[in-house]
């Protein structure tokens, strides 16, 4: 799950940073001449900078290969079920809410009034996908459910006092 990866990667890097700052703080006393320190650590910095740039480039390229904006590649002859979604203060108007496992779906999402957010949650309340619901524009989000169950739609953009009760459900069967 992406959330877990994000959390673990963040923890690793944040811990690393904490260690670096901790070590420097511990080694802050016992004054030494600055010139040699500068020379040595400027050299180290070039190496560190290059590594950082390479890692960032690699991650950028890797994570940009497959963007959620594009229609995924389906098996031959398969077309997604197109579902129209209209958000309004404070509810969801969804043209179809019952789907089959493995059925590719394209949600075309817009709004009648203000900005809302169309977030799809599974039964364990993990966020699977989202897009913004905004007036005058139609955003698209693609999803194919792998498991049967009741999925929930939660509003993910603050839209007024009933924002947190602006939910709906979707049924997915075998």
């Amino acid at each position: 799950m992406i959330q877990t990866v994000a959390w673990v990667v963040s923890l690793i890097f944040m811990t690393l940073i904490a260690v670096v700052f901790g070590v420097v703080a511990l080694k802050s006393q016992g004054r030494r001449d600055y010139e040699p320190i500068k020379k040595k650590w400027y050299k180290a910095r070039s190496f560190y900078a290059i590594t950082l740039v390479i890692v960032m480039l690699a991650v950028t390229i890797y994570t940009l290969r497959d963007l959620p904006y594009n229609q995924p590649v389906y098996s031959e002859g398969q077309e997604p079920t197109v579902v129209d979604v209209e958000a309004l203060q404070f509810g969801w108007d969804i043209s179809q809410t019952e789907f089959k496992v493995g059925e590719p779906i394209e949600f075309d999402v817009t709004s009648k009034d203000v900005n809302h957010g169309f977030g799809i949650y599974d039964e364990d309340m993990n966020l699977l996908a989202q897009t913004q619901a905004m007036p005058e524009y139609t955003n698209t989000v693609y999803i194919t459910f792998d498991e049967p169950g009741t999925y929930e739609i939660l509003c993910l953009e603050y839209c007024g006092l009933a924002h947190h009760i602006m939910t709906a459900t979707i049924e997915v069967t075998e």
Partner: protein
Amino acid sequence: MTTTTIRARERKSENNQIVTYLIVGGAIIFVMMIFGILMLLAQGGALDVSPAAFYQFLTIHGTGMIGAAALAAASVMWYFLREYVDLSKKIFIANLVLFLIGVVMVIVGVFSFEYASSWTFLYPLPALSGGAWGTIGALLYLFGMLILGVGFLLLFIDTGRAIIKKYGSLGKGLGWDVISGKKSEEDAPPKAVIASTMVTIVNVTALLAGATVLIMNIINVINPAFTFDPLLAKNLTYAFGHIFANSIIYMAVIAVYEILPRYANRPWKANKVFLIAWTMSTVFTLLIYTHHMLMDSVMPTWMLIMGQALSYANGLPVLIVTAYGALMIVYRSGIKWDVASGLIFISMFGWVVGVVPAIIDATIVVNHVMHNTKWVPGHFHMYMALGACAMLFGFMYFLAKEDSAIKPNLLDKIGLIGFTLGVLSLSGSFLVSGALSTPRRWATHIPEWMGPALFGAVAGVLMTISLAIFIIHFIRYVRERDYVPRDEEGKKIA
């Protein structure tokens, strides 16, 4: 009257406005923290708060924190920048006055007229509240923000004017003539000037975008028949919000540049790499606001890809130059640790750790499942509270030390530790919530989401107590600085 007392009095009156800025900023941040705790208690199910009240708290907390931190950070910038260029004190005071007027209007709009659009006032929410608030509340808030914005705009136009007058152009303020080799590194502008130039450029842009979208909202509130393109409005809103919120740390970091070398007794001069880093920050800060719109697939895809790529790149200047430089300055320097230097050092840590979850969330595939979850407040509380605010509070201790005989005591040290642990816990609890898919800006939580919220509330109490300690120290300084003997330069006589 001897010259000594005149000089001392001048010096004191020069710092009067700085002190006022810091007291106003610190006091607002303190009160806003209490609203933060109330929100978490409500989300954690420990306190019964109506949705209307919750979203009013959310609105005032977001607006108040950004505004107050920006105000205090502007005073840090002003304090150091005035050593190098001629700034207008009148404008500095005018900004404070406009700020206070704006704040009063915002407070009245939110609490008396139940206005609650959150601080991003995303068009057309101010006009379409679903019956929750009316025209008066919306206009009070929007005009209040506009007045506040005009004050800051005047301030940054003045800093720009002063920099151009002294250095010739904003490009030269960023040291472009040194980068291009026309001038030697020794003649690079001071770091306070470089940072102030960057902030001037980005904030004038941000405030113009903000003013435009505020006016659009105001027109739409007054006459709903006038409508605007919601996507344009969203772009302007996030251009304003992202840049203005980020500029806070770029103003406050001047305190790090100025204070850390003094404590470590080592030089920290701008060189070419430093200048290039600040030019990069200038450009990236202006462009990366699109990472707030990664879930708007109607946006041109190249803008969103740019949003991700440049958000990554935006981490480089701080990771490679500022934080790295700070670590080098401190390493084996024999630095004297006290509350000021401690907070300043911690602030660099706060900025850098905050970059990590920010960069991760700027990744489009991650954003797809983390956008508008509590992951977002997770990363920005780290870098706003542990980064920017620690710089501001560190500066307050620095000023007290420079300007009076007050010494921090054990309590202040406890405050330092409490604040650090408090912010780390609060931000950590937000990040956990985000990893659990908890949506942000939700007045209520399902039971699975309540634990981290309650934990965060306790952490918030720790932060608030720590800030109270910082403020008490600062007030002690303000009351005693009248009795400090000074030499001709206005420096205190030990």
